[in-house]
């Protein structure tokens, strides 16, 4: 019988092994290159186009607000890319027959897979922010990087963890990679935002329990939290997302969906 320390170190080693395998898989499938290229290319558009045809906004906050309004999209794309097939792929392609027969605790496999999807997504967001910060320094000088920029960066990272958890959860319960990836993508892109808008504008209820209601916090820190637009004829609504409620909701989404995802994946059996 092994001691608890030996057991813990073995679990940690196994998890690291799964993470490194997942990262190699993402690299081999060119997912990393594609998403890293997007993370550099997208913010560059906001630099190159005004440089050639127009002028930059007056303040660094306005520039950051404009540039980072597309980081949500990148989070959804890369989250779906990395986490969409993380669990379901093993069951659909039957590679789990090899993987699950190893003397490794199943939970360490799934936690490793989650971390293996989370780390590259966080890296993509970080590269996006790094590129944007270099642009801001190039245009407005180092003074353009305010505390709001770091605030936005950390919120984006927390939002990333919750988005990855949601997609990982779908990957744990669904049977096909394509369904899991598409459902994750469209949930964050359309289903949740539409539900949120309907609740706000038609039912007059604040949808504080919907994750995407708080995605705007990433850029709200630059311009203040005003009422969200998108109502009939684009008019703003009567609700505005609260910063701290948003953080709590994001953390709860991350942890609950991660735990349920790992639990459901553990219970799944090869068919």
């Amino acid at each position, binding site marked *: 019988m092994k001691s608890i320390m030996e*057991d813990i170190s073995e679990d940690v080693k196994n998890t690291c092994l799964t993470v490194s395998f997942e990262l190699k898989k993402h690299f081999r499938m060119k997912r990393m290159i594609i998403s890293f290229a997007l993370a550099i290319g997208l913010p560059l558009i906001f630099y190159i186009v005004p440089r050639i045809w127009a002028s930059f906004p007056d303040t660094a906050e306005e520039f950051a607000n404009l540039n980072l309004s597309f980081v949500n999209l990148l989070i959804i794309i890369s989250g779906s890319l990395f986490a969409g097939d993380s669990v379901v792929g093993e069951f659909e392609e039957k590679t789990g027959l090899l993987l699950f027969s190893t003397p490794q605790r199943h939970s*360490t496999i799934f936690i490793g897979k989650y971390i293996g999807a989370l780390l590259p997504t966080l890296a993509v967001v970080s590269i996006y922010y790094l590129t944007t910060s270099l642009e801001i320094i190039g245009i407005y000088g180092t003074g353009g990087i305010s505390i*709001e920029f770091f605030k936005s960066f950390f919120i984006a990272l927390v939002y990333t963890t919750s988005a990855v958890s949601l997609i990982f959860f779908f990957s744990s319960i669904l049977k096909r990679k394509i369904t899991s990836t598409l459902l994750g993508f469209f949930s964050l892109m359309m289903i949740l935002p539409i539900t949120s808008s309907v609740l706000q504008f038609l039912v007059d209820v604040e949808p504080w329990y919907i994750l995407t209601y708080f995605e705007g916090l990433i850029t709200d820190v630059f311009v203040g939290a005003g009422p969200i637009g998108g109502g009939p004829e684009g008019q703003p609504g009567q609700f505005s997302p609260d*910063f701290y409620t948003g953080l709590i909701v994001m953390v709860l989404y991350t942890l609950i969906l991660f*735990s349920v995802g790992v639990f459901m994946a553990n219970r799944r059996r090869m068919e």
Partner: protein
Amino acid sequence: MIDMRRTMSVFVLLVVMILLFSSLMSNSSDFELERTEQQLPDVTITNLTFSQSEPKEGENITIFVTLRNNESFPITDLTIRLVNLRLEQNISEKQVSIDENDEKTIDFNWTAQGGSNSISALLIPEVVDLEEPIDSMSKEIWVEPEPIGDVYSPLFALIFIFIVIFGSVIIPSIFAFLTNRDPSQEKD
């Protein structure tokens, strides 16, 4: 031959009708233009300024709109409407009168809203069926938003998430130890 003549007559008649109609249309539009120009007063917005150039969110600032009446008679039925184009909100509107060949500055109070705001002053005369303003002027103003949240909360939230996720790796081992089970029995 008769058919040919009839066709020619119809063609000529058609051309004449088209020419007559066109001429009537051009005359009537000239008339409309003349009538509108006669009714619209020659008043312009010459300036739009703010009491503070870099206000903070929630501060009350005054917006000054300067008008000039280029007519040789006083005008009493003018409406100045102030609009925030970013939020598509009416800020305020005032009825003003202005003497002949005179300039007048009207002030509006506005509670500054955070972010970039495009404030537009629209000059609307009380002319029947006229929906468009006769003159307008817009200015951009950046209002420093009231800071929301703090930088430490999302950082701590992130650290907390990492601790829970990485910590969950060792939970099964601890659970097995606490329940005195051989961890190797649970591997599969």
